[in-house]
């Protein structure tokens, strides 16, 4: 097992290692630093010590599978189309392929999805691997991981990327667990290290207060999920052609999970996790009577409607709208915040890189520290002006 110790003859009690520990595991006993059981052997303290007084011994590494090759992207398909995040991941995979020289492969499950695989070439796949089974036409949290793990075992990719949709985040851990490999959730940056060839996976931790770069050195594939809108898709080239491989998987006859019904949200509560624009409302909107204004705006902008925890706790909107630490995480391109103060817990639910436009009458509201544009005003009149501006525009066009 791993061991860590402070060498008492080298430690001078300078306390420099204390703030370096993200887990608060180091304290002083007299003039010597002491590492408690809260330590997880992350090694952050080692370079912080100028006197080489902290010794970390890590277990011996297992050699990675050198045969593993290829960058895989799971192509999630729902209601007749691939999820947009699939195209974003293909774009990112192409960028990674430029430095590793490996082929990019999209994985398609289901008979229906198999009919439109050519799109995946257009967005950057060199190869498409298809399992055209009608049994896989419906997303299934048990059968999909089983099928994808079998494919990974048979074809041995080096990297496997899965879109951080609710479904992707549910199946990716099952695949990783079955393959006994590492998985990094919600990466915001991916890079292949030119020296080691390893995938550097960077993600937020501690509610976004800290970014961590994570490696999966010795197991393959190196797996990561990425939220929608975080990566850029390529401009599709529909003349681009790649290869197509039909693959087989072995599925059990009995189904342990059965989907009984789906209730899909209407446009006014558009899927928050994949929305390009999200309107957020906080207690600053004053009363639930103001909600129709924001619901209309969301409809007009084809945007999702998010709420702070306070709004949900007050019963103004159901939990499905809550964004933040105890709600959902969203990654829109633009977040339009009305009457949201910007507590750390709320901001933790916004992906890094989101463009924030905030309206709040309090000039010192914390949301303004993270906003790209700010309006210091009562949010209701601003929202009304925005809505009437939105309604005015098409009319002008129709007259013209």
């Amino acid at each position: 097992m791993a061991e860590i110790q402070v060498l008492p003859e080298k430690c001078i009690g300078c306390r420099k290692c204390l703030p370096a520990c993200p887990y608060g595991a180091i304290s002083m006993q007299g003039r010597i630093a002491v590492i408690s059981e809260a330590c997880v052997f992350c090694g952050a303290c080692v370079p912080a010590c100028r006197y080489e007084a902290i010794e970390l011994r890590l277990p011996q590494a297992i050699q990675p599978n050198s045969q593993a090759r290829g960058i895989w992207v799971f192509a999630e398909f729902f209601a007749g189309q691939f999820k947009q995040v699939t195209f974003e991941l293909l774009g990112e995979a192409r960028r990674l392929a430029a430095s590793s020289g490996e082929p990019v492969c999209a994985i398609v499950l289901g008979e229906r999805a198999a009919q439109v695989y050519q799109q995946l070439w257009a967005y950057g796949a060199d190869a498409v691997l298809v399992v055209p089974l009608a049994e896989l036409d419906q997303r299934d949290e048990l059968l999909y991981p089983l099928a994808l793990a079998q494919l990974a075992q048979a074809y041995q990719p080096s990297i496997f990327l899965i879109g951080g949709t609710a479904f992707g985040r549910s199946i990716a851990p099952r695949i990783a667990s079955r393959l006994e490999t590492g998985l990094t959730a919600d990466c915001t940056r991916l890079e292949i290290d030119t020296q080691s060839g390893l995938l550097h996976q960077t993600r937020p931790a501690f509610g976004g207060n800290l970014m961590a770069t994570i490696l999966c050195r010795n197991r393959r594939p190196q797996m990561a999920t990425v939220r929608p809108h975080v990566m850029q898709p390529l401009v599709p080239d529909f003349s681009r052609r790649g290869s197509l491989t039909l693959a087989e998987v072995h599925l059990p006859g009995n189904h342990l999970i059965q989907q009984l019904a789906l209730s899909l949200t209407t446009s006014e509560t558009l899927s928050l996790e994949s929305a390009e624009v999200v309107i957020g409302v906080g207690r600053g909107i004053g009363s639930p009577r103001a909600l129709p204004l924001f619901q209309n705006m969301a409809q007009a902008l084809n945007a999702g409607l998010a709420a702070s925890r306070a709004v949900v706790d007050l019963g103004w909107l159901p939990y499905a709208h809550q964004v933040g630490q105890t709600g959902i995480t969203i990654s829109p391109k633009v977040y339009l915040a009305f009457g949201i103060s910007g507590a750390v817990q709320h901001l933790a639910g916004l992906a890094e890189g989101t463009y924030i436009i905030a309206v709040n009458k309090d000039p010192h509201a914390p949301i303004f520290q993270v906003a790209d544009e700010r309006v210091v005003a009562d949010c209701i009149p601003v929202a009304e002006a925005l809505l009437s501006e939105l309604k005015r525009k098409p009319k002008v066009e129709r007259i013209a």
Partner: protein
Amino acid sequence: MEIVVCIKQVPATTRVQLDPRTRTIIREGVELMLNPFDAYALEEALRLREAHGGTVTVMTMGIPSAAILLREALAMGADQAILLTDRRFAGADTLATATTLAAAIHKLGTVDLILCGRQAIDGDTAQVGPELAEKLGIPHATAVTKIEEVNTGMLTCQKMIDEGYARLKVQLPALLTVVKEINTPRFPTLAGFRRAQKSDILIWKADDLEVDLGHIGLEGSPTQVIATFVPEHHKTSHLLEGTLPEIAQQILASLQKQTGREMHG
């Protein structure tokens, strides 16, 4: 019905603040608390026991002081508490954590349902639940908002999906991860606390589990954090001024620029 609830001690991150000079997290005086999502898992387990009988076992892997969480869970009404604590468990990533929890659940014997919070608020990965279900070879569902019906060998539940909600029939044993919408957790009672003080917390170490030491703790963790840094949070925001229609036009212009699409009513 035999139910296991997996819980985790997390920093009360409301207190997480950055040292403006060293740009590191100030950890002094940071309290630890029960992961908020796990309180809903425990409450749901207690309600299921009240309706269907059986026992509720709470389990956590952590440092010895995490026992305080288990006491709280006992005070709320859990029947049994297990603390998985060993230096050899330390440094575990989600896979090694799932492996350890799976070994502990195997040791318990027959289990019908495992409930977890959807994610822990320190790591936010939401991975341990599904990874654990795979290790146990049982079905799982994430972000469950309602357990509607429990019959012999199966349950129906409602879960959040990106596009709305789905209703599922899941065969037991199964693992569900739950969200806030599912219930409102009870508070521990004074009588509960008194009872909890008298209850024993089982302490299991690596040697108590049938588990390969190479699959737990840091050694059993395929992922390693190689660097941490503080993101640039502070932006200088651009102030929008003018009459209300002018401000509205500026917002619309930004929306169009950022998304690359026309904004119409």
